């Protein structure tokens, strides 16, 4: 049982909140998955011995 009485236009209210939630969830999922993908690719490149000049400089004693 829904705890609120949303009146005769409840469908419009629920749809608005559901669509907003879906769009925000999509944004969050895109950013999280993109982060994982970029980190994985970087690790693969570094494992293959590809390093930038700044990385090499950072590792100097």
């Amino acid at each position: 049982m829904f705890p609120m009485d949303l009146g005769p236009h409840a469908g419009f209210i629920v749809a608005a909140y559901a669509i907003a939630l879906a769009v925000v969830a999509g944004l969050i999922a895109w950013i999280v998955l993109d982060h994982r993908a970029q980190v994985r690719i970087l690790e693969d490149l570094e494992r293959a011995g590809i390093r930038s000049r700044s990385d090499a400089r950072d590792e100097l004693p």
Partner: protein
Amino acid sequence: MRLSELANPSHFNALTERVLPWLVVATMLAFALGLYQALFVAPDDYQQGATVKIMFIHVPSAWLGMMGWALMSASALGTLVWRHPLADVAMKTAAPIGAAFTLICLVTGALWGRPTWGTYWVWDARLTSVLILFLMYLGVIALWRTVEDPSRAARAAAVLTLVGAVNLPIIKFSVDWWNTLHQPASVLRLGGSTIYPTILVPLLIMAVAFTLLFVTLHLSAMRNELLRRRVRTLRLMRAAAANP
């Protein structure tokens, strides 16, 4: 840390790593409080009934849709005038987030309009100018994806963004300049808000929550973009090493 040090991507990443967890917690708390106030405390409107609850997501989304383009415009100046290394990263990553909030604004506006006005859509000045904002976001995103070199894409996108900024005052003042079905400004106006505090306070809390969400998503997307550019650099180095 001085502001100028943020120009260094590694300093920016270090700051982001520290700030993001706090931003996530603050965003969740703000949404918990805002949604509780909006759904369980705020009264129904005397004319619209419970459909006024759509306002608590529609209005903050509209503000952030416009704020996203304003942020992109400031970043465009940073790209063209000062050539700040993070300016085009900020500009590029704000576009999809601003587009998403503008989409939420358009869809929730249509769903609010049907029971209130009797129609999902009219081609009046406010609705049409916001639709144009959404289409401009799509255009900028397409431009970024079309030009492979990030610095060339940044300059083209910066020019398009600054031209598109003309639409922001049109959106804001469209309800004053033309006869529209959309109501005039009722929160940000000279003479103060016309909304009763029991509805205004939840609206402002939701606006803070949406703003925190925007900042959190934007910083995260900027961090991803810096990683993507690093990947691009390393791939170019690998290609150069393979073909000396």
